[in-house]
């Protein structure tokens, strides 16, 4: 699927925030996911991933800011909002006393673009008899029914909140295979929250890292990787001397390894004779941002982090 830069974004949030009592679950979240992208949302437990997803799909009302899907504001619980997204929650909610066939019937009645052929084919391929009651299915099978309903809804945006945690590796692979095929076929946009970082590399072309209710990093994976370097420098090197923003640093006796968001204006400095600059891998990049102390993260504006020359934030692990 080729992406049109001028096309309206599948997901857009502007200074989105949600407060629970005195505590902000998510704050100042501004990001964009283009149509046709597969975006990975990564963050530790309690980082605000589910809060963000629920505001995007209109299940939760923002305290401040706004979210929109394909250019239309997500408003909590309106039919128009809900029709544009398929959502699979962490706990795979289904009606326990319904049969599988009843669940699919419900899906067909409630969704104008429902693909019954796809739903039945998946159930058949998975060996789940439509007559079975939901409550008699295993946890993995229930997850599969719920994921099947999300795919069969044929909404242009598929939002998955930790979708595959209850599936075995093969079932997980088979589900993601169907999602990749749907993306290739119909240009489906996918937003997927997951802890399995190693799996995301091959699935995602867009990345969002969230910690402590703040966006740390967001953008096209290729651009993000190109903007970072892993520097091996003498131990005595100060963060301020590094040509960019130090995200993560570990010091050994004589040398230090620093993951740096390189300042485009100072790229030439990477050729320093005493330094070695290596490209950064996907998992390495994600883990570096996840490991930042929340304090360093909170005072950082990710949108300007690349442009701002210094002072750098101390994020030292020893």
């Amino acid at each position: 699927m080729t992406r049109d830069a001028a096309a309206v974004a599948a997901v857009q949030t502007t200074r989105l925030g949600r407060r629970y009592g005195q505590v902000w679950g998510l704050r100042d979240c501004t990001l964009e996911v283009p149509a046709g992208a597969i975006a990975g949302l990564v963050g530790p437990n309690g980082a605000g991933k589910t809060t963000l997803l629920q505001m995007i799909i209109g299940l939760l009302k923002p305290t401040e800011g706004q979210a929109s899907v394909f250019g239309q504001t997500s408003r909590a619980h309106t039919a128009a909002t809900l029709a544009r997204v398929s959502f699979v929650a962490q706990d795979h909610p289904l009606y326990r006393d319904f049969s599988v066939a009843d669940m699919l019937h419900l899906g067909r009645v409630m969704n104008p673009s429902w693909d019954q052929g796809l739903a039945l084919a998946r159930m058949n391929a998975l060996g789940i008899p439509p007559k079975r009651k939901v409550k008699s299915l295993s946890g993995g099978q229930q997850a599969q029914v719920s994921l099947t309903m999300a795919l069969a809804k044929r909404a242009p945006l598929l939002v998955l909140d930790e979708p595959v945690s209850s599936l075995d590796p093969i079932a997980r692979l088979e589900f993601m295979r169907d999602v990749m095929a749907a993306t290739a076929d119909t240009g489906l946009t996918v937003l997927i929250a997951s802890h399995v970082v190693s799996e995301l590399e091959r699935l995602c072309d867009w990345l969002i890292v969230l910690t402590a209710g703040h966006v740390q990093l967001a953008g096209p994976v290729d651009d993000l990787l190109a903007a970072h370097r892993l520097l091996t420098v003498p131990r005595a090197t100060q963060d301020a001397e590094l040509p960019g923003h130090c995200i993560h640093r570990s010091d050994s006796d004589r040398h230090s390894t620093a993951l740096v968001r390189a300042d485009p204006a100072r790229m030439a400095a990477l050729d320093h004779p005493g330094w070695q600059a290596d490209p950064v891998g996907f998992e390495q990049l994600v883990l570096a941002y996840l490991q930042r102390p929340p304090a360093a993260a909170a005072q950082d504006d990710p949108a300007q982090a690349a442009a701002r020359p210094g002072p750098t934030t101390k994020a030292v692990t020893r």
Partner: protein
Amino acid sequence: MFRFHVDGSSGVPPYLQLVHQVRQSLLLGYLQEGDRLPTVKDVASDLVINPNTVVKAYRQLEHEGLAGGRPGQGTFITGSLSPDPPEAHRALRASLERWLRDADAAGLSDEAVSALIAVARHDMKKEKV
């Protein structure tokens, strides 16, 4: 039909892995001009990777003049990579084998040999800059 594979632990971006595989297969003769490459959807679902990754790899191959899309038919191999001239190849291989035997005699492990090659290449690149 040509089949790709992706190694998740190699550290090489998936799209580059696809490009390398086509280049390598052209060198080895497994792929020839006129061969059809699998569709984006087939590669994406076969390997369970992002379809945009496949699109990007095919675009890179087109840019290099190695592949081209025919509307409604798919992506085809349009170019070829001439393998290294066999003469030079043979001579290089002979000297490499001599060197490897010396390394073995000096007690270098496979790992040490790889590390030595990596360091030498790295330093040569630096000298060029």
